[in-house]
């Protein structure tokens, strides 16, 4: 995997693909698979649009290797916007990649907070400690935030922990649940329906709408989980409110 450094970096310009998604959105694919390279292009693209905003572009939805751009359909056609974006993308190499913050997330993996732990362990003949050790051993990349406010897609989970989604998603996953699915892991910021497997819970509030909105995690961050006891969980829960 090529290592992209801050500052001037050579980036292949041939790869982008533009696809209209609706009459007011345009999808830009920076790659056709999940990779660090595509992710870094997505981040550079967002930072460039932030630095040089386009008029009548209303919103952006980044993902693993694509960005959905929402625009005013009375001011732009897809072709016009594509041309304007191609011009910016040609300068992506000059956009410095912000240094990754490392965010520590305390998580309690004890039984009461980990409804799927027993099954995951049983399938492998493992102890919960082994799962916890594996989950907390790696720092994860925040590929993007999506689904609901503050939900960060983190990867990659060690292969040995890869789990299929639940056949029937839960109607409500408790807020703060630490979950895994495939080679991904995440924290559910709110009580939402969810099909990922739950192995713990954090007392942190992952998203706050107050004061203009803030999320514990942002695209490009790295995340390190830290195992805490149930007592610590309750203690931290008070201060996190």
């Amino acid at each position, binding site marked *: 995997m090529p290592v992209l450094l801050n500052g001037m970096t050579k980036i292949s310009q041939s790869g982008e693909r533009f*696809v*209209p*998604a*609706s*009459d*007011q*959105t345009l*999808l830009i694919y920076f790659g*056709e*698979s*999940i990779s660090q390279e595509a992710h870094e292009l997505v981040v550079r693209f*967002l930072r460039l649009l932030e630095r040089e905003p386009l008029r009548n572009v*209303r*919103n*952006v*939805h*980044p*993902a*693993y*290797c*694509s*960005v*959905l751009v*929402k625009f005013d*359909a*009375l001011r732009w*056609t*897809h072709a016009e916007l594509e041309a304007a974006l191609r011009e910016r993308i040609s300068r992506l190499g000059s956009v410095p990649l912000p240094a990754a913050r490392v965010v520590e997330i305390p998580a309690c993996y004890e039984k009461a907070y980990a409804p799927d732990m027993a099954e995951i362990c049983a399938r492998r003949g493992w102890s919960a400690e082994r799962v916890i050790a594996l989950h907390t051993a790696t720092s994860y990349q925040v590929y*993007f*935030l*999506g*689904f*609901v*406010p*503050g*939900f960060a*897609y983190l990867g990659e989970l060690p292969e040995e922990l890869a789990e299929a989604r639940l056949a029937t998603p839960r109607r409500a996953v408790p807020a703060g649940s630490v979950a895994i699915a495939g080679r991904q892991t995440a924290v559910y*910021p*709110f009580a*939402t329906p969810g099909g990922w497997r739950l192995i713990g819970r954090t007392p942190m509030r992952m*998203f706050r*709408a*107050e004061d*203009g*909105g803030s*999320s514990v995690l*942002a*695209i490009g961050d790295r995340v390190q989980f830290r195992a805490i006891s149930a007592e610590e969980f309750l203690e931290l829960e008070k201060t996190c409110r």
Partner: protein
Amino acid sequence: MPVIRVMEPGMFTTVQDLGREGYGEMGVSPSGAADALSLRIGNRLVGNGEGAAGLEMTLVGGTFEFSEPGTLALTGADFGAWLDDVPVEMWRSCEVRAGQTLRMEGTRDGARGYLCVRGGIAVAEVMGSASTHVLSGMGGFAGRVLRRGDVLQIGGQAGAEQPFARSALGKAPPQQRLAGRILSTAGRKLVRARKKLRVTVGPQSDWFGPAAPRRFYGDAYRVTEESNRMGLRLAGPVVEKLPRGEMISEGVASGAIQVPESGMPIILFVEQQTTGGYPKIANVISADFHSLGQLRPRDEISFELVDWEMARALLREQEALLGSDERLFD
């Protein structure tokens, strides 16, 4: 400050404006009125800026008591409304006296009705918008649906007092000129909810089998009970997918029609997830979004494919009519 007392909240009533755009990077969907056209027109009827906050009611309307005199308008679905004992006409501004009670019943047509009051519903804006995002408990009144006993403040909302009609006077017209303002015939035609939804081709239309388009565009779908502001789940002919494996999650547009494993399409709506991993066969055009807000469970709908040029032309036409007080009101 004048207030509205919630005597009965109705089935699912929230404070909504035109939504919060620009926070996609944080996973925040725009939310806002499910039938934005009705909210915009309701605000215009009472002399507010189009984006002022109003109440969105679903299937069953509420009962509200007004503490002080004011001007209100009801738009969207017709819930059959009375101000004390006098029936209230839809799509027309009307005066309310101090202490009067506005009472509504179940829907007679459509799914969502709007109550707009002159001055707007005053709630703290969250990320630039008054709209409620129920799932995350964000915005609106305490981030939730209204309950009996809630007290909503009127007026003081930024933008609510913007002059409508960009009038030559340069200020909001006097109260008496608003009374009896009524939507024109052309305006009524504009807001009529369509059951044949016009769509553009989706970004993964090549993920579906050769029979899929004939099915999808040829047959009718039924809106199921499991539909809400996040999405409309449909039942009908299975849209057959090609065995192409799993898609990589990507940003999803409002009105996207995604097809999960079951083959039953889901139309993503105002409180939609911002990203998703199911292929999209089509996308409802912007000019028809308001119709989605009026769909009820068991309604039958169908889809008609249009090109980008047509989608834009229809939106332009809609906005041109909305931009003209002369054409919009009698």
